[in-house]
């Protein structure tokens, strides 16, 4: 069963593992703490979102050309403030996204956060376990619709098809914050292993081969962020360095090799009372080694960026407009050389995507939200390869309408 092919990481994302993990974490907490009123220090929260996607052509999150409802996000989390400086937390996530994710519950995070020092001037500490990677403005809560600027994050930066690779890591994450009169400077540094799945293999190697892709050397993640005291400006620079190793099966047409990538994002956001402007820029240099000349020559630098504006029409009604561009190789933005390298099998427009998006968010109550969006696309790069296996069968200019209802508690 291919489902358990990546057993080391896949199995550890199951409920049984979470149960074991939480039991282990709880065992670390001295039982005398808050023995009388410990329930006051436990919080349970969650969210449920259901989407609808209709595209003029191509498939995005299911059979969207006929209208798809194969986009469901369900999360539930619990946290326990064991002492003022120790927090235990975990979240289960079920995500159904077309052909890519079937909704099987996974452990989104499960960690012990130990704040070693916390004063009005500074704070620092360490998180142990599976923690979300603090990348860009949105990665760490990207599956919570209330925290996103739109139904779908700009795919040119927050790719859905390889989301798990950069979503979280199992290991350690150190953090520090410095507060002064003007604002907060924060730094996060993480080291760990990143989970790998079939979507990663298909995206990077072009096909789901007989061999296995596994997380190779430890992954590193870092973010430096500055936020002004009034919350108006946020500036951040973040990066993840990931190594994947592929162990080829005898029948595979490519050899065993390694993929090295560095994914970095520069982000800036300005928030006023009724409007905000956001821009993010991402580059991802990818190197292939050892697979044989056909794959090894595919080294390139992925590039993506967007500019987004939002405006509050009323306190409960927000407009958002965004323009995004992304390219699989910033030195071949038109895709012609890459297309030629495939002998024309993959058309040039599959190597880039430029789109306009407009959307409306209605906060019906503080915990229930409705969204509607329309997107005009030129190019098909961010269409999941798994849902559109024949690149030449995709349509270059396509439009997408989407709806989302989301509830949280």
């Amino acid at each position: 069963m291919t489902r358990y092919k990546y057993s080391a990481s896949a199995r550890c994302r199951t409920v049984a593992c979470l149960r074991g993990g939480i039991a282990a974490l709880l065992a670390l907490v001295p039982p005398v703490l808050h023995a009388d009123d410990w329930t006051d220090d436990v919080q349970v929260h969650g969210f449920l979102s259901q989407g609808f996607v209709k595209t003029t052509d191509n498939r995005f999150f299911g059979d969207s050309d006929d209208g798809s409802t194969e986009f469901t996000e369900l999360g539930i989390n619990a946290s326990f403030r064991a002492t003022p400086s120790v927090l235990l937390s975990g979240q289960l996530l079920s995500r159904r996204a077309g052909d890519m994710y079937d909704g099987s519950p996974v452990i989104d995070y499960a960690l012990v956060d130990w704040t070693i020092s916390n004063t009005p001037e500074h704070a620092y500490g360490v998180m142990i376990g599976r923690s979300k990677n603090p990348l860009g403005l949105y990665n760490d809560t990207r599956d919570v619709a209330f925290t996103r600027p739109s139904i779908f994050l700009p795919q040119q930066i927050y790719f859905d098809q390889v989301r798990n690779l950069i979503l979280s890591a199992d290991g350690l994450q150190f953090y520090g914050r410095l507060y002064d009169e003007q604002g907060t400077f924060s730094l996060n540094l993480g080291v760990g292993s990143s989970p790998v799945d079939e979507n990663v293999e298909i995206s990077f190697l072009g096909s789901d081969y007989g061999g296995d892709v596994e997380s190779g050397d430890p992954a590193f993640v870092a973010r430096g962020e500055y936020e002004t005291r009034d919350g108006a400006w946020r500036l951040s620079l973040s990066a993840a360095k990931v190594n994947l190793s592929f162990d080829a099966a005898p029948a595979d047409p490519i050899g065993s090799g390694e993929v090295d990538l560095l994914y970095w994002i520069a982000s800036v956001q300005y928030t006023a009372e009724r409007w905000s402007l956001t821009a993010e820029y991402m580059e991802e240099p990818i190197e292939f080694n050892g697979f044989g000349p056909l794959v090894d020559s595919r080294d390139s630098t992925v590039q993506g960026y967007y500019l987004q504006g939002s405006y509050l029409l009323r306190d409960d009604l927000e407009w958002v407009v965004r323009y995004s561009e992304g390219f699989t190789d910033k030195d071949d933005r038109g895709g012609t050389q890459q297309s030629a390298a495939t002998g024309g099998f993959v058309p040039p427009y599959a190597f880039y995507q430029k789109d306009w998006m407009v959307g409306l968010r209605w906060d019906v109550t503080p915990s229930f939200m409705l969204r509607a969006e329309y997107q005009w696309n030129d190019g098909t790069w961010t269409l999941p390869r798994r849902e559109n296996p024949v690149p030449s069968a995709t349509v270059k200019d396509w439009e997408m309408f989407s709806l989302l209802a989301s509830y949280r508690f």
Partner: protein
Amino acid sequence: MLYPRPTSFSKRLSGMLIALICAFPAYADPVLIAHPAVGMRDVSLNSTRLIFSMQLGQWPDGGPVPVYVLPDDSEVHRSFAKDLLSLYPRQLRRVWDRQLYSGTGQAPEAVADPVEMRQKVANTPGAIGYLPSEMIDDTVQVLSIR
């Protein structure tokens, strides 16, 4: 269809809001309050923002700081966030959500109205919150922001 019309529900909600506003006419500006045993008379603006951002969970003596807030759309909450903290309510919400849904923090305890706020802060050691000044009584202590 991109402009959803207000439903009867939202009409009912705004009706309730109007009723609420009429019930508490002309709220005075909110003031910062704490449990009476908290041994401080004032707190810095910086610390107050950190406490309500759920990033400073301890008093200087090491004791925990339970934080109570009114709903995001309440006038008292808006006024507290904007006038006392110089933050918009949705910035506070963004900070809470980011911590809450990434496992790096907890959300403040939400109370339904100022009466419940006063009762919770009065009965929870170390607690902090805010109230319209005319609702202050001797069950809670007022903290000034310096």
